[in-house]
């Protein structure tokens, strides 16, 4: 495999410096790939794809009758993070999750941050995922976000920036683990000498977090993963995590609430459940409290939670912390609760509702990225420099109509990574989602999910829109 015709163009390339030298932490893998023939590379690729398919490591594509299950495209070239960089990232993530949890506790109790004038009340109240029903409710150990998937990107200087915090139920961690397995099988001998830190403990740590939030004085709590069901696109992951932890996977219809206590229906009668790792949205959790038409939830579950008879991860109403407008306040949130400067910066962000920003944004639509506050999965985004006049006009109208619901950001030219593309290696834009767990303490698995936009020039890494993934190596050292 040759990198002779590889071009970094003007982007920050993860593997190569601007002058074409290989960065120190990529030298090993560069050498290994260079000695590989194209044929061997293809064989490895095919073997990996086939094993994903056989194991059913697939996601569901909605609205597609025939091929409802697809494998998540996987690129064999790993993304590598040297130790020093990782230390910086993990400190920044720890700071962030602690601050966000303090923020949630505050806004669901005293709301000091509003009273002190840091965040105007209407931003909280108008956040789509704010749950006023939960004000004054104490949650186990005061933890709201137990599992967080924070999306990081790197700019043209290689600086890590936070793109968004996924504080509801971030998915993709099973791909992080399976990608590692796949790469270990593809390069069995190479792995021993590469000095890669293991990420295998994730499920153990997750289990500990869930045990930590069990109702008081409980020995050996019963834990279960609550899934929307087999038709949900992340179903594989729900099963995967349940298996790894050795706990049951349940659907809403498997559960009943009696006297404010949750039970599962078994062939030998009802069995109490103490903690749920739920992958069902707030809205669907309990038809008595939220959406009345929900059949995925459990009537009475919320009351059981309020009474302290159930641990729930993540807690209810955490979505207010990953609201794209609240995101703009996170540096101020960190400063307010921790009196520290953020270790990881945000992407420069303007709120249309602050100062003269609206005017500025409307005038510079073609130079900015505009995002709808409550969309996810890469939808509801305008990338100004690449957008047509028509799209810009549409967004302009939408922003004017509902400025609370939009943010504007400086476009970041995402870092690129050598990725196999039909005829050879080419640079493709990537992002990075590490997974942060918050139980007795904060733990962050060395690694995460690196997503890659496989389409040339594309910045959208989401699997639903032509994204793939890579294994992510965090090294013990810096080379």
């Amino acid at each position, binding site marked *: 495999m040759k990198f002779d015709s590889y071009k970094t163009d003007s982007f920050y390339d993860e593997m190569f410096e601007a002058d074409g030298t290989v960065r120190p932490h990529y030298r090993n893998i560069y050498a290994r790939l260079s000695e590989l023939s194209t044929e061997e590379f293809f064989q490895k690729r095919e073997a990996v794809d086939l094993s994903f*398919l*056989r*194991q*059913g490591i697939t996601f*569901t594509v*909605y609205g597609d009758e025939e091929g409802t299950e697809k494998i998540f495209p996987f690129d064999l070239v790993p993304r590598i993070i040297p130790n020093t960089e990782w230390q910086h990232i993990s400190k920044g993530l720890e700071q962030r999750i602690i601050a966000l949890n303090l923020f949630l506790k505050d806004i669901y109790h005293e709301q000091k941050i509003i009273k002190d004038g840091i965040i105007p009340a209407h931003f909280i109240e108008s956040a789509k995922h704010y749950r006023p029903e939960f004000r004054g409710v104490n949650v186990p150990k005061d933890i709201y976000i137990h599992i967080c*998937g924070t999306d990081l990107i790197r700019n043209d200087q290689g600086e890590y920036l936070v793109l968004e915090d*996924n504080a*509801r*139920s*971030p*998915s993709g961690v099973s791909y992080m683990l399976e990608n590692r397995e796949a790469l270990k099988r593809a390069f069995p001998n190479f792995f021993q000498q590469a000095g890669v830190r293991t990420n295998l403990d994730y499920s153990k740590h997750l289990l500990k977090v869930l045990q930590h939030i069990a109702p008081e004085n409980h020995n050996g709590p019963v834990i279960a*993963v609550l899934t*929307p*069901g*087999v*038709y*949900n*696109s*992340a*179903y*594989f992951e729900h*099963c*995967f995590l*349940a*298996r790894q932890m050795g706990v*049951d*996977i*349940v*659907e*809403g*219809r*498997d559960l009943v609430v009696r006297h404010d206590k949750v039970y*599962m*229906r*078994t*062939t*030998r009668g009802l069995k109490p459940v103490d903690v749920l790792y739920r*992958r*069902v*949205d707030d809205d*669907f959790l309990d038809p008595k409290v939220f959406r009345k038409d*929900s*059949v*995925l939830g459990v009537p009475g579950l919320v009351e059981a939670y309020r009474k302290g008879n159930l641990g729930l991860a993540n807690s209810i109403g955490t979505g207010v912390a990953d609201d794209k407008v609240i995101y703009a306040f996170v540096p101020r949130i960190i400063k307010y609760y921790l009196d520290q400067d953020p270790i990881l910066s945000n992407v420069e962000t303007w709120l249309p509702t602050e100062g003269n920003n609206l005017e500025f944004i409307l005038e510079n639509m073609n130079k900015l990225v505009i995002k709808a506050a409550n969309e*996810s*999965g890469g939808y509801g985004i305008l990338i100004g420099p690449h957008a047509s006049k028509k799209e810009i006009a549409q967004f302009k109208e939408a922003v004017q109509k509902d400025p609370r619901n939009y943010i504007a950001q400086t476009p970041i030219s995402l870092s690129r990574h050598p990725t196999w593309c039909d005829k050879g290696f080419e640079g493709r834009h990537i992002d990075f989602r590490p997974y942060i767990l918050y139980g007795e303490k904060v733990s962050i698995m060395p690694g995460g999910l690196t997503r890659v936009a496989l389409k040339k020039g594309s910045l959208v890494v989401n699997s639903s829109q032509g994204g793939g993934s890579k294994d992510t190596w965090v090294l013990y050292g810096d080379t």
Partner: protein
Amino acid sequence: MLCRVADSLFWMSRYIERAESAVRLLDVNLQILLETDRTSTSSIESFWKPIIASTGDLGLFKENYDELNSETAMDFLTFSDKNPSSVLSCIKFARENARMIRDQISEDMWEIINRLYLNLKRADHKKIWKSGPHDFYKEIREYSNLFQGVTDSTFLHGDGFDFIKAGMFLERADKTGQILKAKQLMDAEWAEKDETNPLAIAQWVSVLRACSAEEVYQQIYVTDIIPKNVIEFLVLSREFPRSILFSATKLQFHIHAISDCPTTHYSNEAERLCGKLIADLTYSSVNEIFERGLDDLLDHIHRTITKIAIELNNAYMFFPIIDPAQEQKQTTI
């Protein structure tokens, strides 16, 4: 164990057994056809008619195919996604059930079902038909055997195992009955009751083969293929693993293991019906079956088995059905 999990284990296992039975029936009949001199369109049609009637739905077949011949029969019974009893449909349903309980079954069990499904889905129908489907069918049977072996050696032998086995034996008892029923229908179709007629004998051989029983039959009876013996063997044998009585007895063993109730009495309706069926068969002679009429007995067995399945569901597996659309709407970020 969750009620929903019990249901999925039970049906996963039933569907695999159902697919295997469909394959057995098809394979032997395709082979029988090779050994007969019936080549005219109408005689081939009347050969397949009872088989399709017994396993699937003749009306459904006519809606989807212009002509009934060996190739279309094979296609309908093997690959058609319009036919809920086709081999492909059965494996698809088995896989759907397995997928719902991926966390409960072993990795190996899942991979066997998933691979079988992917192979079937990718299969080139024309090519298989041209090269003769025997090897293809053999492979499917091997997968089914592999699944049972792997289940036995990788899955906890607790309640879940009993639900799997109950599903398998319940389906097997039903399908052995169905194979005999198909032969009854053939007789009606041909109106050739002469037991020395070579085709009639060939059909009885096919019935035995469909149950993998030809060789054992020879060992036990050491005589020509006589309908009475075949029926005695396939309905009343206490030792042959595909006979109806054997399967019902195993079914009883496993459903009583679930309830921990001794087989001397019963704790639910499914156990009562199963015990009654076993007593009925145990104390019947083949002559009595003939007096009663085989047709009547087979219908009775089929109805009883259907009821047992319903009662098992009522006792252990009942849970509400929900709308898949809401499952999809959940954000996956």
